[in-house]
């Protein structure tokens, strides 16, 4: 059984947040990249949890291999991190993601899976924390003609397919699919494990399989972006906060409630 986990390298969203809060988030001359070179790059958080979901399946004794694949710039640490966590194989499709759209990224990932023996399960993050789009997994599923189960907190093998618990606005939903599937993982899965010191040292020597785009059998349509990311800007937030003053918690509370009643908010 083969599980493929798709992981993306992103700028640390907490660092981006801190720059934004300090009013120091800036866009470069190209009109779309964030300029702060100090922001660390790491594995998208939900993708780390997708890998964790794969490792948990393996932990239950399911005979499987876990392949982690990323389409992006020359893979730095995220694939080593995946290897340290227990991926059996790590693969890198080296492209400039800024020039591509979700359709082309999905074509690359689907092409990789198709040309390397397919997958019984494709695990993705529910969305990437940079673009927040959450569309690549659905596109991959369509391209591979697999059912797509989104926003999962648990995935188990069973009955010739997968049993997945989804997090819906109305509570948990349990679904089953027969055969292969694409499943996207949400943070409700819980914290991913840490690599051990020994596995980290071992992973330093792991060389990712570098995949040539020309080997993926993509058509002209597969490689043609449907949307172009042309611009990025930082929105302004107009603050007009009225601070309530008072000498004690009781006074603050009375004044706030009075103020809300005055404005008919409550």
């Amino acid at each position, binding site marked *: 059984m083969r599980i493929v986990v798709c992981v993306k390298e992103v700028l640390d*969203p907490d660092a*981006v*947040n801190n720059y*934004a*809060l300090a009013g120091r988030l800036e866009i470069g001359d190209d009109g779309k990249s964030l300029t702060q070179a100090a922001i660390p790059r790491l594995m998208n958080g939900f993708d780390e949890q997708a890998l964790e979901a794969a490792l948990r399946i393996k932990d239950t004794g399911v005979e499987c291999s876990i392949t982690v694949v990323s389409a992006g710039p020359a893979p730095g640490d995220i694939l080593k991190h995946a290897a340290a966590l227990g991926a059996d194989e790590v693969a890198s499709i080296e492209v400039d993601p800024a020039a591509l*759209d*979700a*359709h082309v990224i*999905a074509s690359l990932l689907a092409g990789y899976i198709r040309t390397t023996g397919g997958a019984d399960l494709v695990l993705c993050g529910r969305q990437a924390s*940079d*673009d*927040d*789009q*959450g*569309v690549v997994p*659905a*596109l991959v*599923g*369509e391209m591979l003609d697999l*059912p797509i189960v*989104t*926003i999962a907190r648990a995935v188990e093998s069973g009955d010739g397919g997968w049993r997945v618990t989804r997090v*819906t*606005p*109305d*509570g*948990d*939903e*349990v*679904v*089953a*699919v027969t055969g292969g599937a694409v499943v996207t993982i949400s*943070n*409700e899965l819980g*914290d991913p494990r840490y690599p051990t010191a020994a596995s980290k040292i071992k992973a330093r020597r792991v060389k990712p399989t570098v995949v040539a785009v020309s080997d993926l059998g993509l058509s002209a*349509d597969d490689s*043609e972006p*449907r*949307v172009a*990311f*042309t*611009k*990025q*800007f930082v*929105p302004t937030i107009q*603050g007009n*906060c*009225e*601070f*309530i003053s008072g000498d004690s*918690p*009781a006074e603050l*509370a*009375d004044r*706030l*409630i009075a*103020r*809300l009643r005055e404005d008919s*908010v*409550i």
Partner: protein
Amino acid sequence: MSSNEVVVVTWGRGGEAFAGEVDDILTLGRGVAAATGGALNWLTLGPVSDTIRQTAGTYGVANIDHIEDAKLAEFSADATVAALAQYCEQHSPRVVLIAQGFDVRLVAPRLAAKVRAGVVMNAAAVEVDGGGKLSVTASAYGGDTRAVYEIAGERACVVSVLANAVLPEAADAATTPAVRDFAVDLAAVDERIQVLEKPKAEGPRLDAAEIIVSGGRGLGDAANYKLIEELAEALGGLPGASRPIVDDGWVDSSHQVGLTGTITRPGLYLAAGISGASQHMAGCSAAKTIVAINTDSDASIFRYARFGVIGDCLEILPELIRAAKS
């Protein structure tokens, strides 16, 4: 090739009122249609109620397109995607607008893949320039930035629009939309996902609440979340939460407000011990009035708040409960 038509798509809830939930995308759609020079249509999967007719007329819809099929009676992603794809193949709309929601996150990109269209989620604006070039502005980095995506050539685009991105505005002249039945063939569709256990919807949902009192890590301890519940009850609202306290198991995930939780739009959103990270604000910045209680006067939440209280929420919440009850 696509036409210049713009179609707003809705489904579910037995065709009942989508009270207030489509007014904004119909307004957006009318503007886009005016710029592309095409008609604004409303495609609904399910019965056409009087509310749909009325709302469509108010917002200047030309046609109400109507699809009904037994396989669409309960939500099925495969059937919904197939029906929408068949519609798009015949009508070739340039822009498909859908109000973002849980199922839309799956349906929109799948539909785009089927009809070879572009897709943009979390959209806040759609623009058409003089040359007919379409671009979509979407929220990124949880709301810290906006990304602009240009649709290639004359391609169609499926756009999933954030709640409250657009202020609803009725058309200058109301229309009397024609209802057009559209037949789909779903015989070959067999939903591949089998539901074993349905979610147990308990009580009212956060996304419909008028008053929400939310707590975050500043509460310090799981036991203190009861202050949030008590104040919510005293104000006649519902309790919400930031993600870290959901991740830590203080409350279950149905309470999470934010980018990856529930997107709310209450009249009052009171946030206690929440820093105001963009990903949290993505779920509550549409509130009419935000009140923040935080010990840190520099907390980001105060940039969004209408009223702020600088102080310890563990001291202030009990007093608020008392004052709200009086």
